């Protein structure tokens, strides 16, 4: 199969780009891994492309190759081909993930850690295997550093209530940026109210990215925690987390990294970053909803009290007190989302089989790496969107040194972003987000109350970008004709 696929891929691109390397790197070849399925599906993709999608371009991109793995993309909405560009809100799921969940319920659904029977043992094994997969995906040194949560929001709340209530005193400072997601702000406001700690927000610099020099200056011996996003869900900027961690550690502060928008799109290595805590949500990385994770350094998790009480998190329960289990169980009260965790494991297998580096190269790699292939998706999106009349795109201008993630938040003068999103959906079948994207402080800072956002994932193609830009031009003309 792999041989056949490589042949097809090479034939399609060889004449133009002799060193094109999206799909022919060797992959693990276990028969149950999503890899073999992904490879197999390539032959199906040709026909899939012929039906619903625009004509296959001369260069077959990663996006074109893997689209058949995402059945949801091949449909019409409101009479047009669906173009899904709301990936920063949530990603679509490949067949491999849906199949893993179905197999769990069909073949070995059972509670975990509680029974000695066959099904329970199998479910426990797969559930714990999912934890190991996450650990190796983000290069944690041990899988006990991975705590399953419902989503990133719950993971942040876990740290806030467990670590925060235990470690924060009046006048202690928590440093954040104005570009944080509400999930990374509100838990700390609640904890600040309870502990008397103070939140300090860092603004943007003239390039419209969080001002890290300001952040560095804001750090002091009062700082106990720094909470920063890795990739901004509005500005598309990428923060130098390694540097921030270094500065924070120098003054004895801990760092929590909101990696919701980075983990699905690039290699994230917690040991390289040296982050103390890192959170992400499964649903943004091709996994199911209802599951996410917290990474925490072992010594930190071991010293933290439980967040919720119940089954699974205790060692012994007496009538007046209990002794707590070791992490990660200590933080996983009650029956966990077993099927979802296994689905997340399958998503990680799927992403790893493609390779996060390849996904990142396709979406947003530095120009010099693939200059001969023209620009990657992120810059293509930015440059294409700039051609729309009266558009204002937020965040940094991409340059050789400043990379953007593959998303753009923008406004078109005199048209409400929600009206734009409604028209794009109703008239063109394009799904984008409008509103404040759970980043109201950032919107306020930018002097706006809402914006529209196009966000891509690796199953999107340049044709999708061309389509949305054409549709946007139409939208602008439509609303202006009503003025």
């Amino acid at each position, binding site marked *: 199969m792999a041989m056949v696929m490589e042949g097809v891929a090479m034939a399609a691109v060889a004449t133009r780009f002799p060193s094109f390397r999206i799909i022919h790197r060797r992959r693990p070849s276990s028969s149950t891994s999503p890899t073999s399925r992904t490879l197999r599906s390539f032959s199906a993709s040709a026909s899939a492309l012929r039906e619903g999608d625009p004509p296959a371009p001369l260069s077959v991109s990663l996006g074109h190759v893997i689209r058949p793995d995402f059945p949801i993309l091949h449909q019409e909405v*409101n009479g047009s081909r669906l173009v899904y560009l709301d990936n920063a809100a949530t990603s679509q799921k490949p067949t491999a993930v849906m199949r893993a969940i179905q197999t769990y319920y069909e073949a070995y659904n059972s509670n975990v850690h509680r029974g000695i029977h066959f099904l329970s043992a199998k479910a426990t094994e797969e559930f714990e295997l999912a934890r190991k997969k996450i650990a190796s995906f983000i290069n944690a040194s041990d899988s006990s550093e991975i705590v399953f949560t419902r989503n990133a929001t719950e993971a942040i709340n876990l740290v806030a209530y467990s670590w925060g209530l235990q470690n924060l005193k009046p006048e202690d400072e928590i440093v954040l940026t*104005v570009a944080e997601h*509400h999930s990374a*702000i*509100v838990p700390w*406001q*609640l904890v*600040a*109210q309870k502990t008397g700690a103070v*939140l*300090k*927000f*860092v*603004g943007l610099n*003239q390039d*419209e990215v969080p*001002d890290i020099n*300001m952040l560095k200056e*804001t750090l002091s011996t009062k700082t106990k925690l720094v909470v920063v996003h890795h990739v901004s869900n509005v500005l598309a900027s990428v923060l130098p987390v390694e540097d921030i961690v270094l500065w924070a550690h120098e003054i004895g502060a801990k760092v929590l990294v909101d990696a919701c928008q980075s983990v699905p799109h690039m290699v994230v290595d917690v040991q390289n970053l040296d982050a103390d805590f890192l959170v992400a949500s499964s649903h943004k990385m091709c996994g199911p909803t209802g599951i996410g994770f917290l990474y925490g350094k072992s010594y930190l998790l071991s010293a933290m009290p439980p967040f919720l009480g119940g089954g699974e998190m205790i060692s012994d329960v007496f009538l007046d007190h209990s002794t707590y289990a070791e992490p990660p169980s200590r933080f996983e009260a009650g029956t966990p989302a077993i099927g979802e965790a296994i689905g997340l494991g399958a998503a990680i297998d799927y992403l790893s089989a493609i390779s996060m580096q390849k996904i990142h190269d396709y979406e947003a790699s530095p120009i010099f790496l693939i200059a001969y292939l023209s620009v990657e998706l992120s810059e293509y999106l930015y440059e294409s969107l*700039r*051609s*729309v*009349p*009266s*558009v*204002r795109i937020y965040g940094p201008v991409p340059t050789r040194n400043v990379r953007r993630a593959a998303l753009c938040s923008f*406004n078109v*003068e*005199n*048209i*409400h*972003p*929600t*009206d734009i999103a*409604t*028209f794009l*959906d*109703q*008239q063109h079948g394009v799904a984008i987000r*409008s*509103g404040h994207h759970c980043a*109201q*402080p950032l919107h306020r*800072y*930018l*002097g*706006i*109350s*809402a914006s529209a956002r196009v966000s891509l994932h690796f199953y999107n193609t340049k044709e999708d970008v061309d389509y949305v830009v054409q549709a946007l*031009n*139409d*939208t*602008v*003309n*439509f*609303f*202006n*004709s*009503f*003025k």
Partner: protein
Amino acid sequence: MNSSIIRTSTTPPPPPQCSISSSSRPWIKGPTSISGRRTLSFRRENERKSLRSSDSGSNFSSRLNARNPSLVEIGTPSPAVGTAVADRLHRLVLEFKSLEEPMDRVKRLLHYASRLPPYDESGRVAENRVVGCATQVWVEAEMEEGGRMRFRADSDSEISKGFCSCLIWVLDGGEAEEVLGLKTEDFEYVNVGLHGRGHSRVNTWHNVLITMQKKTRALLEEKNEKPSLEPSLSSIMVSPGYEISAQNHGGLAQTHASHYLLSLSVTLPL
């Protein structure tokens, strides 16, 4: 019946205006917090782009703008005395049911948006904001001496404005009891893009109607509490209300979140 349903325009739209007007387009609050340098470059960029856009001539939206003669219009919104709220609702639902193409609904809403009476700038205050909408919507309610309800509304979104215009057409001039008797499900057919009942955070219909009803209820209670104390008062303005119906969890959460934001002094180093 007014025959000018939708402004028919087959000529290319005029080039977009470049000036940022914070008063007429409140979602762009003007360049206050953006550095002057960037505001300038934004303008220059717009000027360049508008030149380009004006020669793009025909496109698919001009087709959309062609008038659809099969549409029946509900007529100039007027708080008709004696026309029951239920009757007007019925006519509105019939009208929107006859519009099968979603785009026709959008166009109709934009048409009604253009008829919404101008809203006083002073009304765009936090107390009048409808919580839980994806756009900014402001609603004010008054009760006339005879007990009839009067409403004013505005939005920074044209489509939301269209919703408001329809709601006002149905509810304005109605008895308080009539206003309170409406259910959000009644407006199911007067929707765009949200399928079914649309119990969504972004359902403007739902949120605006519930706000109008809450304000009506508050005014009614106020009136019942002191029936003849102040006979000279011709109308009572509703007091700001912050809580929202239990149905709208998203809105509630949002309200709480923004209160937290307000209660903490957030210092933004500039």
